[in-house]
């Protein structure tokens, strides 16, 4: 039917009369009703999509979808729904689920549909199930039988559909059920089937390596498959295998090298070319594997040298040409491989060269890759960084968040003690701009790591930590706070008491200041309370009442936070104790009195206890108090006798009465696998039901390989097993307590288990029956105890980056750069090289101007001034128009990469032609942009003036590069200009304010307008298609001029 429509339309084009076309549109509409009906006959579905598409608000969409769900629920459950209808319902369910709503009521119908004999239905069923179900879904078991059957089908399409489902649905438990059949399919005559079978095996390998161990040789065999797609599928699996076990695959190195060589030499069929590059995806995969094989292996690496050279040579673009995305992808992968293996200097040189090219590129994508590559290269050759310091700083200050983060990653790798302050400062200011928890945690962890490793002084360490706590708050692990407290209590580690007390008083001051701020994260408050309690009154500048008042304020401001309250009351206790210990009379201030009274009646026993302890101190003598809470006692080692000898008597008598001896955690684990620790015994009551549910779905797996996978028959063994499971876990529960007073009979156990629940308290409270001085001490600063026991090395500067520091020493700033940047560069890359930088600056200035002279005779007017950093970039791009034009185009996402070479060839195009073309874009495009165009025709002209491709007068703009770069910056924020929906998108995003940004857009639009590019060649006659689509859409009721004409845009722009 469709083809008939095509014939008519083609005729219409031949005759060309507008009238006939209009008539035919109507016919087309009616015809397309038929073609639409090919797969979905119902108008209901089309209406649904249309309604959702036209929904004005999220709430409206929501209500439409909810109604649809209700409707489907009703319809799908009707008896005897015809197959075709059912298929449609399922597709609609997929749609609903895709929009983020729950369609779980229909899953079972999708599963049922896979049982259908009709391939069409079966495929829809598989599609829906793979989209609906995760591998751990309960319904999977129902589909295994069908998959088994389909894997044996004669029709390879059925087998393919089943294999696709296998990849998604088969979980660890069900692998044995299908594994033999999938392995058999490796010998299938159709390469699609073989390929999918390999991918399925790869998936199995990921899920459960143990079940695949006997098949490892298979993957080696597949590597020799005559079909390239099967071979490349094997590469995915081999990559995983090699990364798991490099040694076992060393002998394949030569094979991989020779495959890569052949691929690079274009020996594969043309069909595998991608934009004229031979099988790039296969090349990249191979390079990844080689990187694994060559790492730390001189011999294997040497075998790769020549092929790596070859690959680079073939993909390296000509001078001034940025190259296509895909060749750069390969080159980037080459860098990764070169830096991973033991490469020779020649390859490293090439890697460095490519990295520089990426970094100098105008495209943010390449800059990003360049920063990443730089991080890899400097791990081998740290000197390389200084050459690119300006690019790095540019990236660091870029408005692009991704690029900024990547650069921070790089700096993180480059950190050493001389630049840690600058880098951490940058990281903290970046953290200020973040809002999401994940990123913040990551950055905070890094800052903490760097500060711990490289901190130049304790003072700085504490300040940085406070900032981190303030910004990241509760995302910081508690351990870090404990480390900080320990640092304060232990001091610098040397016996320099004076420095320590200075440090402590400065900490007290800083926290007193901090506490004035209204909103602080809990963890910072905890640290502050602890510090104030421990050292608040030590140096005598603050009176006890002051500090206690502050602490009460803190507790009062956070009525919901029991931890902070606990810290506050403990701190108050300590201060009071110090006062009493010093022989002074202590009279609690009224607000503190009421705070303590509150806590005495608190629901939290912990807080109550602390408050009571405080009260007790008032009744004790000064000597005793001094013993219990000595001044600056937190630094002392606490001795703790793990044997608890005072309990021995009790244990002995229990044993004598027939109790079982205590087993420690590891022994218990060895004895019964179910119980992990004493603590988890409280949870064990839930375990029976847990075990029951999982077991029920496990057993059919075992039953399936035997052939008949009927679920009901397998329920019986299930049940048995779950019963044993139940009893086992009940036993675990009893085993878990140290003193098991009960007999082992299973029959009695259930009841006993309940009994034990009540009895347990006595068992667990044993250790705390008689508090020793030690445990008392421990509770005293329970906040620190965790940290103290973990006993981490607090000496920070572990010199992993020692190698770097020496090589960074002798660096100098080469070019003339803005003073601020220069300073930054110096502090980042060279420590104290400011002086050297200025002396080198003269040389650099000469160099820069000389370069400018060489490159552009018309450029003489540009003085070596602060902006030369960015100015230089302009020179460079203007000097090589071809490179500039195509790199600009490369920024442009919408143009097919096919079109690039075409543009290179016509680098000298007529700008006015392009402008005409721009304006001449048919229909919606023109209308939607006319606003922007009308506003600034002048702008357009200046745009062309400024385009380096077109005119030499770019120099005037380049000279004024400050302004330019400024507007360039601003252009990023100009996304708002895209408000207009219709028309070509590249015209849409034309920002009328920014000349430079507009330039990119122009190049973009010109590339999309270019005639006969590779992509458009391959497409069908576009007018004809658009007519059909128009007809289809009219039938649906959506018109190009309607609410959302963007829907009709050809994706390639």
């Amino acid at each position, binding site marked *: 039917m469709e083809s008939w429509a095509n014939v008519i339309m083609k005729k219409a084009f031949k005759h060309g009369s507008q009238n006939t076309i209009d008539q035919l549109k109507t016919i087309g509409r009616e015809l397309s009703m038929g073609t639409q009906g090919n797969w979905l006959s119902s108008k209901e579905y089309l209406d649904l999509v249309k309604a959702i*598409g036209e929904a004005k608000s999220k709430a409206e969409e929501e209500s439409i979808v909810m109604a649809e769900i209700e409707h489907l629920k009703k319809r799908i459950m009707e008896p005897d729904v015809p197959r075709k209808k059912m298929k449609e319902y399922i597709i609609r369910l997929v749609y609903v689920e895709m929009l983020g709503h729950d369609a779980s009521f229909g899953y079972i119908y999708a599963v049922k549909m896979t049982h259908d004999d009709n391939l069409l239905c079966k495929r829809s069923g598989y599609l829906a199930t793979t989209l609906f179900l995760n591998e751990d879904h309960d319904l999977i078991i129902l589909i295994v039988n069908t998959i088994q059957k389909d894997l044996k089908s004669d029709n390879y399409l059925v087998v393919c559909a089943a294999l696709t489902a296998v990849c998604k649905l088969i979980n660890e438990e069900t692998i044995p059920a299908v594994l033999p059949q999938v392995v058999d399919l490796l010998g299938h005559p159709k390469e699609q089937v073989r390929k999918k079978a390999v991918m399925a095996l790869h998936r199995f390998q990921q899920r459960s390596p143990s079940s695949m161990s006997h098949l490892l040789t298979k993957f080696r065999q597949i590597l020799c498959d005559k079909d390239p797609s099967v071979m490349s599928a094997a590469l995915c699996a081999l990559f995983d295998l090699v990364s798991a076990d490099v040694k076992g695959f060393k002998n394949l190195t030569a094979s991989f090298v020779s495959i890569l060589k052949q691929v690079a030499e274009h020996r594969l069929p043309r069909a595998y070319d991608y934009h004229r590059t031979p099988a790039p995806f296969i090349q990249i995969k191979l390079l990844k594997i080689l990187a694994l094989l060559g790492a730390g292996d001189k011999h294997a690496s040497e075998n790769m040298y020549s092929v790596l050279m070859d690959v680079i040579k073939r993909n390296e673009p000509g001078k001034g040409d940025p190259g296509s995305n895909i060749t750069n992808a390969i080159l980037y992968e080459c860098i990764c491989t070169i830096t991973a293996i033991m490469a020779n200097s020649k390859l490293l040189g090439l890697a460095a060269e490519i990295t520089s090219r990426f970094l100098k590129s105008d495209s943010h994508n390449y800059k990003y890759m360049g920063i990443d590559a730089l991080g890899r290269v400097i791990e081998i050759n740290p000197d390389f960084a200084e050459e690119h310091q300006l690019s790095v700083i540019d990236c660091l200050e870029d408005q692009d968040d991704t690029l900024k983060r990547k650069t921070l990653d790089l700096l993180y790798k480059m950190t050493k003690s001389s630049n840690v302050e600058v880098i951490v400062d940058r990281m903290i200011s970046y953290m200020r701009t973040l809002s999401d928890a994940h990123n913040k945690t990551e950055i905070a962890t890094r800052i903490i790591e760097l500060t711990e490793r490289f901190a130049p002084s304790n003072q700085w360490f504490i300040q940085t930590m406070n900032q981190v706590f303030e910004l990241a708050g509760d995302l910081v692990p508690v351990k870090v706070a404990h480390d900080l407290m320990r640092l304060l209590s232990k001091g610098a580690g040397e016996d320099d008491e004076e420095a320590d007390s200075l440090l402590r008083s400065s900490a007290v001051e800083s926290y007193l200041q901090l506490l004035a701020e209204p909103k602080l994260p809990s963890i910072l408050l905890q640290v502050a309370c602890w510090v104030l309690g421990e050292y608040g009154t030590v140096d005598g500048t603050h009176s006890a009442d002051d500090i206690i008042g502050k602490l009460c304020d803190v507790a009062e401001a956070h009525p919901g936070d029991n931890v902070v309250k606990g810290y506050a009351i403990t701190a108050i206790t300590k201060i009071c104790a110090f006062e009493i210990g010093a022989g002074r009379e202590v009279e609690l201030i009224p607000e503190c009195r009421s705070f303590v009274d509150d806590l005495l009646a608190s629901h939290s026993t912990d807080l109550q206890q602390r408050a009571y302890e405080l009260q007790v101190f008032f009744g004790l003598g000064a000597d005793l108090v001094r013993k219990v809470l000595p001044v600056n006692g937190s630094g002392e080692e606490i001795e703790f006798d793990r044997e608890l000898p005072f309990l021995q008597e009790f244990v002995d008598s229990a044993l004598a009465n027939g109790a079982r001896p205590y087993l420690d955690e590891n022994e218990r684990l060895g004895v019964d696998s179910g119980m992990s620790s004493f603590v988890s015994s409280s949870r064990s009551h839930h375990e029976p039901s847990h075990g029951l549910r999982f077991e029920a779905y496990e057993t059919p797996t075992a039953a399936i390989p035997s052939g008949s996978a009927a679920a009901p028959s397998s329920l019986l063994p299930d049940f048995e097993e779950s019963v044993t499971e139940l009893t086992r876990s009940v036993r675990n529960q009893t085993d878990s307590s140290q003193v098991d007073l009960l007999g082992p009979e299973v029959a009695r156990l259930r009841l006993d288990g309940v009994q034990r629940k009540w009895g347990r308290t006595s068992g667990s409270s044993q250790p705390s029956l008689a508090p020793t001085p030690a445990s008392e001490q421990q509770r005293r600063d329970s906040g620190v105890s965790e940290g103290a026991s973990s006993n981490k090395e607090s000496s920070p500067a572990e010199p992993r980056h020692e190698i770097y520091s020496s090589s960074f020493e002798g660096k100098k700033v080469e070019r003339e750069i803005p003073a601020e940047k220069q300073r930054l560069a110096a502090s980042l890359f060279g420590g104290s090289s400011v002086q050297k930088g200025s002396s080198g600056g003269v040389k650099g200035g000469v160099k820069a101007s000389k370069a400018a002279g060489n490159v552009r005779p018309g450029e003489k007017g540009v003085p070596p001034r602060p902006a030369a950093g960015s100015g230089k970039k302009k020179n460079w791009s203007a000097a090589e128009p071809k490179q500039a034009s195509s790199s600009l185009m490369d920024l442009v996402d919408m143009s097919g990469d096919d079109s690039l070479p075409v543009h290179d060839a016509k680098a000298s195009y007529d700008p006015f032609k392009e402008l005409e073309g721009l304006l001449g874009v048919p229909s919606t495009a023109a209308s939607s942009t006319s606003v922007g165009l009308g506003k600034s025709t002048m702008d357009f002209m200046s745009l062309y003036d400024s385009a380096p491709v077109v005119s030499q007068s770019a120099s005037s703009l380049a000279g004024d590069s400050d302004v330019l770069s400024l507007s360039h910056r601003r252009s990023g924020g100009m996304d708002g200009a895209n408000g207009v929906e219709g028309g070509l998108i590249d015209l849409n995003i034309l920002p009328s304010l920014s000349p430079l940004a507009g330039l990119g857009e122009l190049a973009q639009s010109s590339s999309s307008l270019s005639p006969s590019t590779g992509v458009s060649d391959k497409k069908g006659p576009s007018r004809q298609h658009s007519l059909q689509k128009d007809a289809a859409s009219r039938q649906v009721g959506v018109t190009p001029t309607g609410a959302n004409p963007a829907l009709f845009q050809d994706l390639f722009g």
Partner: protein
Amino acid sequence: MIHFVLLISRQGKVRLTKWYSPYTQKERTKVIRELSGMILSRGPKLCNFLEWRGLKVVYKRYASLYFCMCVDADDNELETLEIIHHFVEILDRYFGNVCELDLIFNFHKAYYILDEVLIAGELQETSKKSVARVIAAQDTLIEHAKEQSNSLSNIIAQATK
């Protein structure tokens, strides 16, 4: 490995989702909301990558549609960008000047095509030709099966009359 593929329109409407790693429905909604917010707000000249929860999201805009793929942190971003382009080219070849509307009304076909390009989170076929061939084979076979079943049901219908 690719963890998921998303197609989002400029208005933030979901056009296609495919999850290769397990995500619950709740997580999916959250991921989509989070990512579409991040991606749609990015300017046109910024790079096409996002670092996100320890993974990387590579996106590319085609007309009014954003194609996004989430890959591991150590995957090659430029390659992923080209995988997206590869997929779009195949869609384009199949639909002939593919536009958003095609994907809306034929989203299940887009799924079938995606299944031929990617499998289990890996690129399975790098030859456009062979993808086109399989899809065509499926289409004709289905057509064929359909006719058959139609004629069969016709016969039955007539016989039972």
